[in-house]
């Protein structure tokens, strides 16, 4: 089984590239002979159907809903309307205009949390991965430990950190100051960031560790013989070689941070200016039955996430294949495409 298994490592992938064309031809033929088109349709369509119902349909509904106003008194007739009036782009105009403060505040909070948490997570995650990669004894134990923050539900971790950041809690006892962490203010942002980074940095560490493990040791030995210092080896060998894995991890962390909800909602609370994110804003409006503005917020968040993802993938695509689109297609031919490449 092992001798036919395809190695997924970067170096191994480079090495096998020349022999690809004949192998690929053979595979395509053998797969195609099975009359797979109809079978594929049969196997894939249930999933697509479900995704259409649970993702596409609500998205279209949100777009439509964001153009409608609330039920209530009709100013023209004086009667209570049973249907929602069409208001065009008024919800968006209101969000960006009159109620703009709340939207832009949430927008900047979301952006700030994303940039800071993903930045910190990357640094801490890479450091963790480097340590774990060197540690030979007890690696299983470390790996099990590192999975614990990932497994703790975000809602529970928010409660846990609210307890830690309590005014009489352990955090204040450790730093010897009385800070009311969970009240409005910059310290509330700090609390959210600390809790978020704790939960997700190990995850980045895990992915980077996987990337580190496929770098052949010979590369380091050669560099060491050439007299490269540890720092230079890290900067010129380790970092470029784990970059694909790291960027994919960062992309997914970014997408996750942009929709942050549970942590600030539980740790600090709803409708708190200093930590309100776009997700919280949309959910808050929806739970107050103001579906029009809520949908508009949801659509704006969706667009924002989409644009960031697009920017990231463009950046990633260039980095992964050295800039040429043709090279990218060739690269993903036989190999299972990396996750970021798939989204190009």
């Amino acid at each position, binding site marked *: 089984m092992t001798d036919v298994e395809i190695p997924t490592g970067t170096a191994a992938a480079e090495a096998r590239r020349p022999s690809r064309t004949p192998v690929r031809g053979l595979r395509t033929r053998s797969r195609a002979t099975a009359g797979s088109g109809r079978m*594929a349709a049969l196997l894939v369509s249930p999933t697509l159907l479900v995704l259409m119902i649970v993702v596409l349909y609500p998205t279209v*509904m949100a777009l439509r*809903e964001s153009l409608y106003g609330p039920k209530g008194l009709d100013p023209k007739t004086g009667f209570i309307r049973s249907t929602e009036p069409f208001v065009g782009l008024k919800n968006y105009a209101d969000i960006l205009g009159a109620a703009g403060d709340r939207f832009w505040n949430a927008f900047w909070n979301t952006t700030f949390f994303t940039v800071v948490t993903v930045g910190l997570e990357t640094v801490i995650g890479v450091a963790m991965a480097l340590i774990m990669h060197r540690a030979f004894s007890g690696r299983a134990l470390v790996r099990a430990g590192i999975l614990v923050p990932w497994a703790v*539900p975000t809602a529970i971790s928010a409660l846990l950190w609210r307890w830690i950041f309590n005014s009489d809690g352990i955090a204040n006892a450790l730093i010897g100051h009385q800070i009311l962490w969970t009240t409005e203010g910059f310290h509330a942002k700090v609390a959210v960031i600390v809790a978020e980074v704790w939960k997700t940095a190990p995850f980045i560490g895990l992915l980077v560790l996987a990337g580190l493990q496929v770098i052949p040791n010979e590369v380091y030995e050669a560099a060491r013989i050439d007299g490269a210092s540890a720092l230079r080896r890290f900067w010129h060998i380790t970092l470029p070689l784990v970059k694909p894995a790291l960027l994919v991890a960062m992309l997914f962390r970014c997408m996750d941070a942009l929709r942050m909800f*549970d942590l600030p909602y539980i740790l600090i609370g709803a409708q708190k200016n200093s930590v309100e994110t776009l*997700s919280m804003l*949309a959910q808050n409006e929806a739970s107050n039955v103001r579906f029009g503005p809520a949908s508009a917020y949801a659509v704006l968040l*969706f667009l924002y996430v989409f644009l960031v993802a697009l920017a990231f993938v463009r950046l990633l695509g260039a980095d992964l294949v050295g800039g040429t689109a043709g090279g990218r297609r060739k690269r993903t031919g036989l190999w299972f495409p990396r996750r970021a490449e798939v989204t190009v």
Partner: protein
Amino acid sequence: MTAMTSRGTTAKRRGRLLYVGVAAVVAYCLAPFYWMLVSSLRRTSDIFDTSLVPSPVSFENYRSLFGASQGFTRALLNSLVVAGITTVLALLLATFTAYAMARLEFRFKRLILTLVIATSMFPVVSIVVPLLKLFTDIGWINTYQAMIVPSMSFALPLAVWNLTTFFRQMPDELEHAAMVDGCTRGQAFRKVIIPLAAPGIFTTAIITFIAAWNEFLIALSMTNRPDMQTAPVAISKFTGATTYETPFGSQMAAGVLVTIPLVVMVLLFQRRIVAGLTAGAAK
């Protein structure tokens, strides 16, 4: 001679430094969790104690959890139903789709895979808002299906992606051999691939279950009756005897109970879970 001994001591020092680093990583990951465990084992009267070991150890918080007023047992059951059904449905659909993605050649395959993965990046709130309105209209609020259906939006892409990676890692020759021996592709799938992919399917099930179990936003929005809330929502809404007192002790105890099954699963299957996570690079 001196050079050798000095190199020896540097190596030794570096080894010691590594141990310190490893200890720091483990402490970073486990210390907050340990604090949750310790706090849950204190009595209400000494909950603000900062000693590292609870003295005396008390199960007061755990006993109060299962008192009638909190409805914690019911919340656990709700979580189990929602996460369980979501996982089973997602796995059922994803196994077939992932097999097609990994093994068959068909048009729009890349496009479909791209779309499936793109949905996993989707902000959940963009789905919750319109569905909340829809479910209010059709009277689905406070039902299990109102939580299971939106959960599929992240569980299904996650499962498809992980399983596709697992199926890719299995050599094509397995089916070829089975088909040479007279199996149809369907039989080869059922009798050869599924049994051999069982570990992968199992791992995917664990990862999907954890994702569904940890879900908060959907469960919060789709329920307003305490008896339909899932455990994370219920715990976040625990109230103390008086309005001004947050029952941190029972919250920590409940947090431990909700997390322990996941931690045990993670410890038992850590090798496979890590393989699944890093191969799929999924949440």
